[in-house]
């Protein structure tokens, strides 16, 4: 993607579905959907991203978070990758 220039966040209170579109991230070259890892209600979004979208590049796993979801179904967590598996996934793509 390269340098992120804009992040479109869901509105608080919106219900998202696991694997469904929840946000959009834009760079100069591409616009991609961000999929919700779990289903539930959006309870908070990272307002910092509006003014400083580069946070996604600098700290994708920290300050560059997108939104917080109140879990609807804990069992959905079971299907997700852990950090080691995800790092491997990123490397192989």
């Amino acid at each position, binding site marked *: 993607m390269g*340098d992120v*220039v*804009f992040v479109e966040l869901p509105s608080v209170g919106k219900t998202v579905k696991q694997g469904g579109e929840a946000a959009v991230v*834009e*760079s*100069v*070259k591409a616009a991609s959907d961000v999929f919700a890892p779990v289903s539930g209600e959006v309870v908070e979004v990272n307002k910092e991203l509006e003014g400083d979208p580069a946070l996604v590049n600098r700290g994708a796993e920290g300050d560059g978070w997108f939104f917080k979801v109140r879990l609807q179904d804990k069992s959905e967590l079971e299907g997700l990758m852990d950090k080691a598996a995800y790092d491997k996934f990123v490397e192989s793509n």
Partner: protein
Amino acid sequence: MPTRPSLADLEPGANFIRRHIGPSAVETRDMLHTLGAASLEEFIARVIPSAIRSSKPLDLRKPMAERTALSYLRKMAERNEVFVSMLGMGYYGTVTPKVILRNVLENPGWYTAYTPYQAEVSQGRLEALLNFQQMVVDMTGLALASASLLDEATAAAEAMAMAKRVAKSSANTFFVDRDTHPQTVGVIETRARAFGFDVVVGDPSRDLKPNGVFAALFSYPGSSGEVRDYRSLIARLHEAGALAIMATDLLALAVLTPPGELGADIALGSSQRFGVPMGYGGPHAAFFATRDEFKRSIPGRIIGVSIDAYGHRALRMAMQTREQHIRREKATSNICTAQVLLAVIASMFAVYNGPKGIAKMAERTHRFAEIFAAAVKGFGYEVKTKAFFDTVTLHVPGRAHALWARAKEKRINLRFVDSDHLGISFDQSTRRAELERLLTVFRTDAIERVSIDAIDKTLGEVIPAALRRTSSYLTHPVFEMYHSETEMLRYLRHLQMKDVALDQSMIPLGSCTMKLNATTEMIPVTWRSFAMLHPFAPLEQAQGYQQLFEELEAMLAEITGFDAVSLQPNAGSQGEYAGLLAIRGLHESRGQSHRNVCLIPISAHGTNPASAVMAGMKVVVVACDEDGNVDVDDLAAKAREHAANLAALMVTYPSTHGVFEERIKDICAIVHEHGGQVYLDGANLNAQVGLVRPAELGADVCHMNLHKTFCIPHGGGGPGMGPIGVKAHLAPFLPGHRVVHGVNPAAGRDQSQGAVSAAPWGSASILPISWTFIAMMGGEGLREATIMAILNANYIAHRLGPHFPVLYTGPGGFVAHECIIDLRWLKDRTGLTVEDVAKRLVDYGFHAPTMSFPVPDTLMIEPTESEGKREIDRFCDAMIEIRKEIAEVEEGSAGRTDNVLKNSPHTHRLLLGDWTHPYSKEKAFFPLKGYPNDKYWPPVARVDNVHGDRNLVCTCPPMANYMEAAE
């Protein structure tokens, strides 16, 4: 003694073919020799599989000499009659300042440029477009404006689609003020139907239920001329989470409170009356403005301010990821171009006249309308419009036709609303004598003659104080600096010099067909009898245009093999949309409205899926094989799988990879077998004319980009034209029109198919360009041009082949009319990118080829037939030299970060400070030995795209920034 040549030998004959085609006979022989072919015929037989070649030569008239073509057209033009136009309805008389007419509209430095994707070589028109955006922002009172859309009606339809996206309301109904131009209502209804929105047309004060709509469109002023205050309705829409859209008029906004101050969310309209001739419907630039909070949802292109690599101000197109190229089937708009040339004219009109000049012409226009209304009231007529700017509607029970006819006898066109109503519009070009002539239409002998000056003294303002504009506009210094012709002339020249256009060098953009736009082809465009016609003028006054349409439609039908042609679509993307709607119409007429699946190969141009979605279809992607060809097995499987619902296949030919696919006929047959129709994207028609006919390949409908294959200039990013050809069974479903009936003769009496453009025949005034090209080339010339375009492309592939991998070739190892060179290896081996190569070409004086389409990290090169071997060799020499520069990085003799490619383009500013780079100035600025004379100096260094998209500024920066830029 040598034989004396006969007079016949000395006579010039029709020699335009030699002017249009670049390579001379000697150069052609050389290139054929290089490619190992004995003749053009042998060459082309090896490139295009015989199974797809047409057996029927083009049946067109013999080529005309340039003088003959112009005489023929002159006679045609004389069959048009230019009356004083008081029809209104969004098209008005205007006076194009001659300095702008000659130095922009008639100037190849402006009209032959391409869309400003390569910002470094486009700063001139980017500045003009930024002025356009500033002008629209000022006039509408909204925060942000785009760099123009195709026409007012499609802008209104885009506003509807955008409103649906951003409105909080979840309603599915769009409300349209019934006092809206009928052609706008027509296009909105066409679009809404395909999107599945409900449209209610009514009286806002009575019929608008804010809770039941996602947006409402108000016309301000209304089509009837009436100016109404919509503040309270707008507030109620906002309470309901719906948007307020205003279709408005730039000149009226010099007098009226702007939409932004009334609370509107979107304002749109046409900028035609700012110096752009009516041209029997176009081309004109529509404007579109919105609030800051919706900036990421605005349709079309938008120019933004950024900085270059050294921190200097530089302009660029912003937020390009919003384009359908990237959004594809997620796109909600297929708008892919703008009307740059016309937007430049409108912006220069504002720059040249300034706020005082604009105010004066607006007040004058308004005063003419007021005097007329007062005078006819005095005659005993009922004036229906109470508050108005430039248009009044008269209530004349049972007499409208007689008065309309009486005006026509005096060579004045009025708007015949219905048998009881007439509309009369005034404009910047209205003169006192014309008002006097008009008054004689309404004054019987029994009524005493009136003095215009006497009435003028008695008038009171008809616009309520709450709608009288009090805020200032056009306050940026650029609108004060260039009011003398000397200053304007130099400003235009100053901007033009910053840009690379075809008058500077070859523009080898793949898929864009940047061929010659010959002067003879351009001359008729600004003839009065083509330029000054209102699109809704009575047909008997437009007989020359009707003849032009008939002849051009016949030419295009012969070239493509289709039975009927619609000239209405204003761009290739609009042609796709119109073609898919025709396919939908066909299925519906057969009781198969459930057919909604559109197959599209993965290699397709992004507008294809975007158009399919807009036409209410579901996109199913078809795979391509390693050679870039459609994977026929996958296609067959998908066609089978979706047979019950298959609507269409969209396929580009020759493929977007520039290859003549051998199995195209099989592909079409498979789709037909499963009940679908074939839409052929004609973007690459330049490789087919005279050799292959889309209809014979099996296509049912195809668009033709007249701005590619048929010589309409690209205008720096518009105008374009995308007529479609169809087989007879689709002809009844070609676009119709709300105002002008009989636009599609095959439609029968109900004219059920809606319009896709505001004007019945699209951008009519640029159609003489394509007619002239075809007439001067004739069948043989067109065929030769196609072969030469293919020869040039293969020559380039051959010369660059040893230096860069050439992707995708057809049987026999040949490409079609363009070739793709592969740079995907670049990044890993050198840290360089395809962009570095593109920008380095600027130092060599070239516009880059198409970048990363259809394959990421490649360059697609299309030379067209108009480039001679010398220019092609210069380009190849530049590419080969760049390959050496890449090798230096690869081998380590040049650094990975501080090298000629990474630092390109090099500007004159670098000459001022100390030279700190490890390579020489000569290498930076004059890299190609033997071509020192025509150095192009880019005005800015590499433009910082990230900075621009993170810090969006889309209006003119304060003057201090310009000063800084000049230092």
